[in-house]
Protein backbone atom coordinates (compact mmCIF):
# COMPACT_ATOMS: atom_id res chain seq x y z
CA UNK A 1 0.00 0.00 0.00
CA UNK A 2 2.72 2.49 0.93
CA UNK A 3 4.54 1.34 -2.17
CA UNK A 4 1.44 2.04 -4.26
CA UNK A 5 1.28 5.55 -2.82
CA UNK A 6 4.98 6.10 -3.53
CA UNK A 7 4.52 4.87 -7.11
CA UNK A 8 1.47 7.05 -7.72
CA UNK A 9 3.20 10.12 -6.32
CA UNK A 10 6.36 9.45 -8.31
CA UNK A 11 4.36 9.11 -11.49
CA UNK A 12 2.36 12.28 -10.89
CA UNK A 13 5.51 14.15 -9.89
CA UNK A 14 7.28 12.95 -13.04
CA UNK A 15 4.38 14.18 -15.20
CA UNK A 16 4.32 17.52 -13.44
CA UNK A 17 8.08 17.93 -13.79
CA UNK A 18 8.00 17.05 -17.48
CA UNK A 19 5.12 19.47 -18.00
CA UNK A 20 6.89 22.29 -16.16
CA UNK A 21 10.05 21.70 -18.16
CA UNK A 22 8.45 21.10 -21.50
CA UNK A 23 5.50 23.47 -21.06
CA UNK A 24 4.07 22.15 -24.30
CA UNK A 25 0.74 20.81 -23.15
CA UNK A 26 0.00 23.29 -20.39
CA UNK A 27 0.82 26.34 -22.43
CA UNK A 28 -1.01 25.15 -25.52
CA UNK A 29 -4.13 23.95 -23.79
CA UNK A 30 -4.40 27.10 -21.70
CA UNK A 31 -4.13 29.16 -24.85
CA UNK A 32 -6.68 26.93 -26.52
CA UNK A 33 -9.09 27.36 -23.61
CA UNK A 34 -8.68 31.12 -23.69
CA UNK A 35 -9.27 31.24 -27.45
CA UNK A 36 -12.39 29.14 -27.09
CA UNK A 37 -13.72 31.56 -24.47
CA UNK A 38 -12.98 34.52 -26.72
CA UNK A 39 -14.71 32.88 -29.69
CA UNK A 40 -17.78 32.03 -27.59
CA UNK A 41 -17.93 35.74 -26.85
CA UNK A 42 -17.92 36.54 -30.57
CA UNK A 43 -20.52 33.89 -31.28
CA UNK A 44 -22.91 35.23 -28.67
CA UNK A 45 -22.55 38.89 -29.67
CA UNK A 46 -21.61 41.93 -27.64
CA UNK A 47 -24.59 41.87 -25.29
CA UNK A 48 -22.92 41.96 -21.84
CA UNK A 49 -25.92 40.52 -20.03
CA UNK A 50 -26.21 37.59 -22.33
CA UNK A 51 -22.51 36.85 -21.93
CA UNK A 52 -22.82 37.01 -18.15
CA UNK A 53 -25.72 34.59 -18.24
CA UNK A 54 -23.87 32.20 -20.50
CA UNK A 55 -20.56 32.50 -18.64
CA UNK A 56 -20.86 29.40 -16.40
CA UNK A 57 -21.74 27.17 -19.34
CA UNK A 58 -19.03 28.60 -21.53
CA UNK A 59 -16.46 28.31 -18.75
CA UNK A 60 -17.17 24.63 -18.32
CA UNK A 61 -17.28 23.92 -22.02
CA UNK A 62 -13.86 25.52 -22.34
CA UNK A 63 -12.59 23.52 -19.36
CA UNK A 64 -13.94 20.29 -20.84
CA UNK A 65 -12.51 20.87 -24.32
CA UNK A 66 -9.12 22.06 -23.12
CA UNK A 67 -9.12 19.41 -20.39
CA UNK A 68 -9.58 16.64 -22.96
CA UNK A 69 -6.41 17.80 -24.65
CA UNK A 70 -4.49 18.31 -21.42
CA UNK A 71 -5.37 15.01 -19.74
CA UNK A 72 -5.20 13.02 -22.98
CA UNK A 73 -1.77 14.50 -23.55
CA UNK A 74 -0.44 12.90 -20.35
CA UNK A 75 -0.81 9.47 -21.92
CA UNK A 76 0.30 10.59 -25.32
CA UNK A 77 3.56 11.89 -23.87
CA UNK A 78 4.26 8.36 -22.66
CA UNK A 79 4.15 6.99 -26.19
CA UNK A 80 6.74 9.36 -27.64
CA UNK A 81 9.75 7.21 -26.80
CA UNK A 82 8.03 3.95 -25.90
CA UNK A 83 7.85 4.97 -22.26
CA UNK A 84 4.34 3.56 -21.86
CA UNK A 85 5.81 0.14 -22.54
CA UNK A 86 8.40 0.53 -19.78
CA UNK A 87 5.69 1.84 -17.49
CA UNK A 88 3.64 -1.28 -18.14
CA UNK A 89 6.69 -3.43 -17.38
CA UNK A 90 7.41 -2.12 -13.90
CA UNK A 91 6.30 -4.53 -11.21
CA UNK A 92 3.75 -2.12 -9.78
CA UNK A 93 0.02 -2.42 -9.31
CA UNK A 94 -2.14 -0.98 -12.05
CA UNK A 95 -4.17 0.82 -9.41
CA UNK A 96 -1.07 2.79 -8.48
CA UNK A 97 -0.42 3.67 -12.11
CA UNK A 98 -4.01 4.81 -12.50
CA UNK A 99 -3.85 6.84 -9.31
CA UNK A 100 -0.64 8.53 -10.45
CA UNK A 101 -1.96 9.37 -13.89
CA UNK A 102 -5.32 10.53 -12.54
CA UNK A 103 -3.56 12.70 -9.96
CA UNK A 104 -1.48 14.34 -12.68
CA UNK A 105 -4.63 14.85 -14.73
CA UNK A 106 -6.39 16.32 -11.72
CA UNK A 107 -3.55 18.79 -11.20
CA UNK A 108 -3.64 19.77 -14.87
CA UNK A 109 -7.40 20.37 -14.62
CA UNK A 110 -6.96 22.53 -11.54
CA UNK A 111 -4.40 24.69 -13.33
CA UNK A 112 -6.68 24.90 -16.32
CA UNK A 113 -9.69 25.90 -14.24
CA UNK A 114 -7.63 28.28 -12.15
CA UNK A 115 -6.53 30.16 -15.23
CA UNK A 116 -9.76 30.02 -17.25
CA UNK A 117 -11.93 31.21 -14.36
CA UNK A 118 -10.23 34.65 -14.12
CA UNK A 119 -10.31 34.89 -17.90
CA UNK A 120 -14.07 34.35 -17.81
CA UNK A 121 -14.33 36.95 -15.05
CA UNK A 122 -12.47 39.48 -17.18
CA UNK A 123 -13.99 38.70 -20.57
CA UNK A 124 -17.60 38.28 -19.49
CA UNK A 125 -17.50 40.68 -16.53
CA UNK A 126 -18.52 38.09 -14.00
CA UNK A 127 -17.78 38.75 -10.34
CA UNK A 128 -16.04 35.57 -9.23
CA UNK A 129 -14.38 37.01 -6.14
CA UNK A 130 -17.62 37.01 -4.18
CA UNK A 131 -18.02 33.28 -4.65
CA UNK A 132 -14.47 32.01 -4.53
CA UNK A 133 -15.08 29.18 -2.06
CA UNK A 134 -18.06 27.47 -3.72
CA UNK A 135 -16.43 27.97 -7.12
CA UNK A 136 -13.25 26.33 -5.86
CA UNK A 137 -15.25 23.40 -4.49
CA UNK A 138 -17.01 23.01 -7.84
CA UNK A 139 -13.74 23.15 -9.70
CA UNK A 140 -12.03 20.63 -7.44
CA UNK A 141 -14.88 18.09 -7.62
CA UNK A 142 -15.42 18.64 -11.34
CA UNK A 143 -11.70 18.29 -12.05
CA UNK A 144 -11.52 15.06 -10.05
CA UNK A 145 -14.42 13.44 -11.91
CA UNK A 146 -13.18 14.61 -15.27
CA UNK A 147 -9.63 13.39 -14.68
CA UNK A 148 -10.99 10.04 -13.45
CA UNK A 149 -12.84 9.41 -16.72
CA UNK A 150 -10.33 10.83 -19.18
CA UNK A 151 -7.37 9.03 -17.58
CA UNK A 152 -9.07 5.68 -18.04
CA UNK A 153 -10.24 6.40 -21.58
CA UNK A 154 -6.91 7.92 -22.65
CA UNK A 155 -5.15 4.67 -21.73
CA UNK A 156 -7.75 2.90 -23.84
CA UNK A 157 -7.31 5.01 -26.96
CA UNK A 158 -3.66 6.06 -26.73
CA UNK A 159 -2.42 3.31 -29.03
CA UNK A 160 -5.14 3.82 -31.63
CA UNK A 161 -4.54 5.78 -34.77
CA UNK A 162 -7.75 7.80 -34.54
CA UNK A 163 -7.32 8.62 -30.85
CA UNK A 164 -7.65 12.42 -31.25
CA UNK A 165 -11.12 11.86 -32.61
CA UNK A 166 -12.14 8.86 -30.57
CA UNK A 167 -11.22 10.19 -27.13
CA UNK A 168 -13.62 13.18 -27.19
CA UNK A 169 -16.28 11.04 -28.83
CA UNK A 170 -16.16 8.50 -26.01
CA UNK A 171 -15.59 10.93 -23.16
CA UNK A 172 -18.06 13.70 -23.93
CA UNK A 173 -21.28 11.68 -23.42
CA UNK A 174 -19.86 10.19 -20.22
CA UNK A 175 -19.04 13.59 -18.73
CA UNK A 176 -22.39 15.08 -19.77
CA UNK A 177 -23.78 14.82 -16.22
CA UNK A 178 -20.57 16.29 -14.83
CA UNK A 179 -20.84 19.23 -17.19
CA UNK A 180 -24.45 19.73 -16.22
CA UNK A 181 -23.81 19.58 -12.49
CA UNK A 182 -20.71 21.78 -12.70
CA UNK A 183 -22.53 24.45 -14.70
CA UNK A 184 -25.47 24.39 -12.31
CA UNK A 185 -23.14 24.59 -9.30
CA UNK A 186 -21.29 27.50 -10.89
CA UNK A 187 -24.55 29.32 -11.61
CA UNK A 188 -25.69 28.73 -8.04
CA UNK A 189 -22.33 29.90 -6.66
CA UNK A 190 -22.31 33.10 -8.67
CA UNK A 191 -25.90 33.91 -7.70
CA UNK A 192 -25.19 33.33 -4.01
CA UNK A 193 -27.18 30.10 -3.99
CA UNK A 194 -30.68 31.62 -3.67
CA UNK A 195 -32.45 28.26 -4.04
CA UNK A 196 -30.15 26.37 -1.70
CA UNK A 197 -29.33 23.81 -4.38
CA UNK A 198 -25.55 24.20 -4.44
CA UNK A 199 -25.06 21.36 -1.98
CA UNK A 200 -27.02 18.91 -4.13
CA UNK A 201 -24.97 19.72 -7.21
CA UNK A 202 -21.71 19.44 -5.34
CA UNK A 203 -22.87 16.10 -3.95
CA UNK A 204 -23.65 14.92 -7.46
CA UNK A 205 -20.20 16.00 -8.64
CA UNK A 206 -18.63 14.18 -5.70
CA UNK A 207 -20.67 11.03 -6.42
CA UNK A 208 -19.64 11.16 -10.07
CA UNK A 209 -15.98 11.54 -9.14
CA UNK A 210 -16.10 8.73 -6.58
CA UNK A 211 -17.90 6.30 -8.91
CA UNK A 212 -15.65 7.03 -11.87
CA UNK A 213 -12.48 6.80 -9.77
CA UNK A 214 -13.51 3.36 -8.60
CA UNK A 215 -14.50 2.26 -12.10
CA UNK A 216 -11.26 3.65 -13.49
CA UNK A 217 -9.11 1.97 -10.87
CA UNK A 218 -10.80 -1.38 -11.47
CA UNK A 219 -10.73 -1.27 -15.27
CA UNK A 220 -7.47 0.62 -15.90
CA UNK A 221 -5.41 -2.52 -16.19
CA UNK A 222 -7.62 -3.78 -18.97
CA UNK A 223 -7.33 -0.43 -20.69
CA UNK A 224 -3.55 -0.35 -20.30
CA UNK A 225 -2.60 -3.95 -21.08
CA UNK A 226 -4.02 -5.13 -24.31
Amino acid at each position, binding site marked *: MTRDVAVALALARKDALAELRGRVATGTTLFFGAIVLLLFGFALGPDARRLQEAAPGLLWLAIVFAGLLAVGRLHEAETEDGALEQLALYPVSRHALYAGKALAGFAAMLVLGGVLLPIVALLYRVDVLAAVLPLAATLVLGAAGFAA*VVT*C*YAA*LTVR*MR*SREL*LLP*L*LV*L*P*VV*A*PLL*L*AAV*KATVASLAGDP*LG*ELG*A*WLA*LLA*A*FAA*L*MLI*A*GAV*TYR*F*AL*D*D
Partner: protein
Amino acid sequence: MTEVLTRVLGWAGLLAVAAATAYALFGVPADLNQGDAQRIMYVHVPAAWLAYLSFGVTALGGIGWLWKRDLRFDWLALAGAEIGVMFTFFTLWAGAMWGRPVWGVFYQWEDPRILSTTILLALYIGYLLLRRLTDDPVRRANRAAVVGIVAALDIPITHFSVEWWRGLHQGPTIGSPERVLDPAAPGQFVLTLLAMLAAFTIAWAYLVVRRYQLAAVQARVDEAARRGSLAAARAAAEGGVPRVVTE
Protein backbone atom coordinates in the same frame (compact mmCIF):
# COMPACT_ATOMS: atom_id res chain seq x y z
CA MET B 1 -32.20 -28.10 -30.86
CA THR B 2 -31.06 -24.60 -30.18
CA GLU B 3 -32.07 -23.66 -33.71
CA VAL B 4 -35.57 -25.04 -33.16
CA LEU B 5 -35.94 -23.13 -29.90
CA THR B 6 -34.66 -19.94 -31.52
CA ARG B 7 -37.19 -20.30 -34.31
CA VAL B 8 -40.00 -20.90 -31.86
CA LEU B 9 -38.88 -17.76 -30.03
CA GLY B 10 -38.87 -15.84 -33.31
CA TRP B 11 -42.38 -16.93 -34.26
CA ALA B 12 -43.65 -16.24 -30.77
CA GLY B 13 -42.17 -12.76 -30.91
CA LEU B 14 -43.65 -12.06 -34.33
CA LEU B 15 -47.14 -13.21 -33.36
CA ALA B 16 -47.07 -11.44 -30.01
CA VAL B 17 -45.87 -8.14 -31.49
CA ALA B 18 -48.44 -8.36 -34.29
CA ALA B 19 -51.32 -9.09 -31.93
CA ALA B 20 -50.37 -6.55 -29.28
CA THR B 21 -49.71 -3.86 -31.89
CA ALA B 22 -53.07 -4.47 -33.55
CA TYR B 23 -54.80 -4.16 -30.18
CA ALA B 24 -52.85 -1.04 -29.20
CA LEU B 25 -53.74 0.62 -32.49
CA PHE B 26 -57.33 -0.49 -33.01
CA GLY B 27 -58.59 -2.29 -29.92
CA VAL B 28 -58.02 -0.12 -26.89
CA PRO B 29 -60.02 3.13 -26.67
CA ALA B 30 -58.32 6.53 -26.88
CA ASP B 31 -57.15 8.33 -23.76
CA LEU B 32 -59.53 11.02 -22.50
CA ASN B 33 -56.85 13.72 -22.12
CA GLN B 34 -54.38 12.91 -24.83
CA GLY B 35 -56.61 11.24 -27.36
CA ASP B 36 -55.10 8.87 -29.88
CA ALA B 37 -51.57 10.21 -29.35
CA GLN B 38 -51.53 8.09 -26.22
CA ARG B 39 -51.24 5.03 -28.47
CA ILE B 40 -47.61 6.01 -29.17
CA MET B 41 -46.83 5.36 -25.51
CA TYR B 42 -47.54 1.69 -26.12
CA VAL B 43 -44.41 1.44 -28.26
CA HIS B 44 -42.42 4.20 -26.58
CA VAL B 45 -42.38 2.62 -23.12
CA PRO B 46 -41.37 -0.91 -24.27
CA ALA B 47 -38.63 0.58 -26.45
CA ALA B 48 -37.21 2.49 -23.46
CA TRP B 49 -37.41 -0.56 -21.21
CA LEU B 50 -35.64 -2.75 -23.76
CA ALA B 51 -32.95 -0.13 -24.34
CA TYR B 52 -32.12 -0.23 -20.63
CA LEU B 53 -32.30 -4.02 -20.57
CA SER B 54 -29.91 -4.19 -23.54
CA PHE B 55 -27.36 -1.94 -21.91
CA GLY B 56 -27.65 -3.98 -18.74
CA VAL B 57 -26.75 -7.03 -20.84
CA THR B 58 -23.79 -5.12 -22.28
CA ALA B 59 -22.51 -4.18 -18.84
CA LEU B 60 -22.97 -7.71 -17.48
CA GLY B 61 -21.30 -9.13 -20.58
CA GLY B 62 -18.35 -6.81 -19.99
CA ILE B 63 -18.07 -7.81 -16.34
CA GLY B 64 -18.39 -11.48 -17.30
CA TRP B 65 -15.59 -11.17 -19.84
CA LEU B 66 -13.21 -9.39 -17.46
CA TRP B 67 -13.98 -11.92 -14.78
CA LYS B 68 -14.12 -15.23 -16.65
CA ARG B 69 -12.06 -14.34 -19.73
CA ASP B 70 -14.60 -16.13 -21.90
CA LEU B 71 -15.25 -14.41 -25.21
CA ARG B 72 -18.87 -15.56 -25.26
CA PHE B 73 -19.58 -12.82 -22.73
CA ASP B 74 -18.17 -10.31 -25.18
CA TRP B 75 -20.47 -11.55 -27.94
CA LEU B 76 -23.39 -11.05 -25.60
CA ALA B 77 -22.16 -7.55 -24.74
CA LEU B 78 -21.98 -6.71 -28.43
CA ALA B 79 -25.50 -8.04 -29.03
CA GLY B 80 -26.80 -5.91 -26.17
CA ALA B 81 -25.12 -2.73 -27.38
CA GLU B 82 -26.21 -3.01 -31.00
CA ILE B 83 -29.80 -3.85 -30.18
CA GLY B 84 -29.81 -1.29 -27.38
CA VAL B 85 -28.77 1.48 -29.75
CA MET B 86 -31.64 0.52 -32.03
CA PHE B 87 -34.19 0.59 -29.21
CA THR B 88 -32.78 3.86 -27.87
CA PHE B 89 -33.34 5.35 -31.27
CA PHE B 90 -36.90 3.93 -31.28
CA THR B 91 -37.48 5.48 -27.86
CA LEU B 92 -36.42 8.91 -29.06
CA TRP B 93 -38.33 8.58 -32.28
CA ALA B 94 -41.58 7.56 -30.58
CA GLY B 95 -41.04 10.30 -28.00
CA ALA B 96 -40.68 12.89 -30.72
CA MET B 97 -43.76 11.61 -32.53
CA TRP B 98 -45.71 11.81 -29.29
CA GLY B 99 -44.31 15.21 -28.32
CA ARG B 100 -45.29 16.99 -31.52
CA PRO B 101 -49.08 16.55 -31.20
CA VAL B 102 -49.18 16.70 -27.38
CA TRP B 103 -46.53 19.28 -26.48
CA GLY B 104 -46.27 20.92 -29.89
CA VAL B 105 -42.55 20.22 -30.22
CA PHE B 106 -40.48 17.26 -31.34
CA TYR B 107 -37.70 17.76 -28.84
CA GLN B 108 -38.68 19.03 -25.40
CA TRP B 109 -35.57 20.33 -23.63
CA GLU B 110 -37.40 20.53 -20.33
CA ASP B 111 -38.17 16.85 -20.31
CA PRO B 112 -35.35 15.06 -18.48
CA ARG B 113 -35.95 11.71 -20.10
CA ILE B 114 -35.42 12.93 -23.62
CA LEU B 115 -32.08 14.44 -22.69
CA SER B 116 -30.78 11.45 -20.79
CA THR B 117 -31.93 9.12 -23.57
CA THR B 118 -30.08 11.20 -26.13
CA ILE B 119 -26.93 10.99 -24.03
CA LEU B 120 -27.49 7.24 -23.76
CA LEU B 121 -27.58 6.98 -27.53
CA ALA B 122 -24.30 8.89 -27.83
CA LEU B 123 -22.66 6.68 -25.17
CA TYR B 124 -23.40 3.45 -26.96
CA ILE B 125 -22.76 4.70 -30.47
CA GLY B 126 -19.28 5.45 -29.12
CA TYR B 127 -19.12 1.91 -27.76
CA LEU B 128 -19.97 0.41 -31.15
CA LEU B 129 -17.47 2.69 -32.90
CA LEU B 130 -14.71 1.65 -30.53
CA ARG B 131 -15.41 -2.00 -31.27
CA ARG B 132 -14.95 -1.45 -34.98
CA LEU B 133 -11.46 -0.06 -34.57
CA THR B 134 -9.69 -3.29 -33.75
CA ASP B 135 -9.98 -6.84 -34.99
CA ASP B 136 -8.00 -8.52 -32.25
CA PRO B 137 -10.78 -10.28 -30.31
CA VAL B 138 -9.18 -10.07 -26.87
CA ARG B 139 -8.12 -6.46 -27.20
CA ARG B 140 -11.55 -5.54 -28.52
CA ALA B 141 -13.29 -7.34 -25.69
CA ASN B 142 -11.09 -5.62 -23.10
CA ARG B 143 -11.66 -2.16 -24.47
CA ALA B 144 -15.37 -2.72 -24.98
CA ALA B 145 -15.78 -4.05 -21.45
CA VAL B 146 -14.18 -0.94 -19.96
CA VAL B 147 -16.41 1.37 -21.96
CA GLY B 148 -19.50 -0.76 -21.39
CA ILE B 149 -19.05 -0.73 -17.62
CA VAL B 150 -18.24 2.98 -17.36
CA ALA B 151 -21.23 3.78 -19.59
CA ALA B 152 -23.57 1.70 -17.44
CA LEU B 153 -22.37 3.50 -14.29
CA ASP B 154 -22.93 6.77 -16.06
CA ILE B 155 -26.60 6.04 -16.78
CA PRO B 156 -28.00 6.60 -13.26
CA ILE B 157 -25.87 9.71 -12.71
CA THR B 158 -27.03 11.13 -16.00
CA HIS B 159 -30.58 10.34 -15.03
CA PHE B 160 -30.35 12.17 -11.70
CA SER B 161 -28.45 15.15 -13.03
CA VAL B 162 -30.90 15.71 -15.84
CA GLU B 163 -33.86 15.20 -13.55
CA TRP B 164 -32.53 17.81 -11.12
CA TRP B 165 -31.43 20.05 -13.93
CA ARG B 166 -35.03 20.55 -15.02
CA GLY B 167 -35.70 22.06 -11.64
CA LEU B 168 -34.94 20.66 -8.26
CA HIS B 169 -38.24 21.80 -6.78
CA GLN B 170 -40.58 21.23 -9.66
CA GLY B 171 -43.17 18.51 -9.87
CA PRO B 172 -43.38 16.03 -12.74
CA THR B 173 -44.38 17.35 -16.10
CA ILE B 174 -48.09 17.15 -16.88
CA GLY B 175 -48.85 14.53 -19.46
CA SER B 176 -45.57 12.73 -18.89
CA PRO B 177 -45.11 9.15 -20.07
CA GLU B 178 -45.94 7.78 -16.61
CA ARG B 179 -49.53 8.57 -17.38
CA VAL B 180 -50.16 5.08 -18.78
CA LEU B 181 -48.72 3.41 -15.70
CA ASP B 182 -50.60 5.67 -13.32
CA PRO B 183 -52.61 3.49 -10.87
CA ALA B 184 -55.55 5.78 -11.59
CA ALA B 185 -55.41 4.97 -15.30
CA PRO B 186 -58.10 2.63 -16.60
CA GLY B 187 -57.13 -1.03 -16.38
CA GLN B 188 -57.46 -1.49 -20.09
CA PHE B 189 -54.62 0.97 -20.75
CA VAL B 190 -52.37 -0.73 -18.25
CA LEU B 191 -53.11 -4.16 -19.73
CA THR B 192 -52.37 -2.96 -23.24
CA LEU B 193 -49.05 -1.56 -22.12
CA LEU B 194 -48.13 -4.75 -20.29
CA ALA B 195 -49.04 -6.82 -23.36
CA MET B 196 -46.84 -4.61 -25.54
CA LEU B 197 -44.00 -4.86 -23.01
CA ALA B 198 -44.21 -8.65 -23.01
CA ALA B 199 -44.50 -8.94 -26.80
CA PHE B 200 -41.56 -6.64 -27.49
CA THR B 201 -39.46 -8.39 -24.85
CA ILE B 202 -39.98 -11.75 -26.59
CA ALA B 203 -38.99 -10.20 -29.90
CA TRP B 204 -35.99 -8.61 -28.18
CA ALA B 205 -34.86 -11.96 -26.80
CA TYR B 206 -34.98 -13.42 -30.31
CA LEU B 207 -32.87 -10.55 -31.64
CA VAL B 208 -30.30 -10.97 -28.87
CA VAL B 209 -30.00 -14.69 -29.58
CA ARG B 210 -29.57 -14.14 -33.30
CA ARG B 211 -27.07 -11.31 -32.86
CA TYR B 212 -25.10 -13.45 -30.44
CA GLN B 213 -25.10 -16.30 -32.95
CA LEU B 214 -23.84 -13.93 -35.62
CA ALA B 215 -20.98 -12.82 -33.37
CA ALA B 216 -20.18 -16.47 -32.63
CA VAL B 217 -20.05 -17.43 -36.31
CA GLN B 218 -17.98 -14.37 -37.16
CA ALA B 219 -15.55 -15.25 -34.40
CA ARG B 220 -15.17 -18.71 -35.88
CA VAL B 221 -14.61 -17.25 -39.33
CA ASP B 222 -11.87 -15.01 -37.92
CA GLU B 223 -10.33 -17.91 -36.07
CA ALA B 224 -10.33 -20.05 -39.21
CA ALA B 225 -8.68 -17.22 -41.12
CA ARG B 226 -6.01 -16.87 -38.43
CA ARG B 227 -5.33 -20.59 -38.43
CA GLY B 228 -5.17 -20.46 -42.21
CA SER B 229 -2.64 -17.66 -42.31
CA LEU B 230 -0.60 -19.33 -39.60
CA ALA B 231 -0.51 -22.55 -41.62
CA ALA B 232 0.42 -20.56 -44.72
CA ALA B 233 3.20 -18.75 -42.86
CA ARG B 234 4.59 -22.06 -41.65
CA ALA B 235 4.41 -23.55 -45.10
CA ALA B 236 6.25 -20.56 -46.54
CA ALA B 237 8.86 -20.54 -43.79
CA GLU B 238 9.56 -24.23 -44.16
CA GLY B 239 10.91 -23.66 -47.63
CA GLY B 240 7.68 -24.17 -49.47
CA VAL B 241 7.16 -27.66 -48.08
CA PRO B 242 3.78 -27.62 -46.32
CA ARG B 243 3.85 -28.85 -42.78
CA VAL B 244 0.95 -30.55 -41.13
CA VAL B 245 -0.62 -28.42 -38.43
CA THR B 246 -2.39 -30.64 -35.98
CA GLU B 247 -4.62 -29.53 -33.17
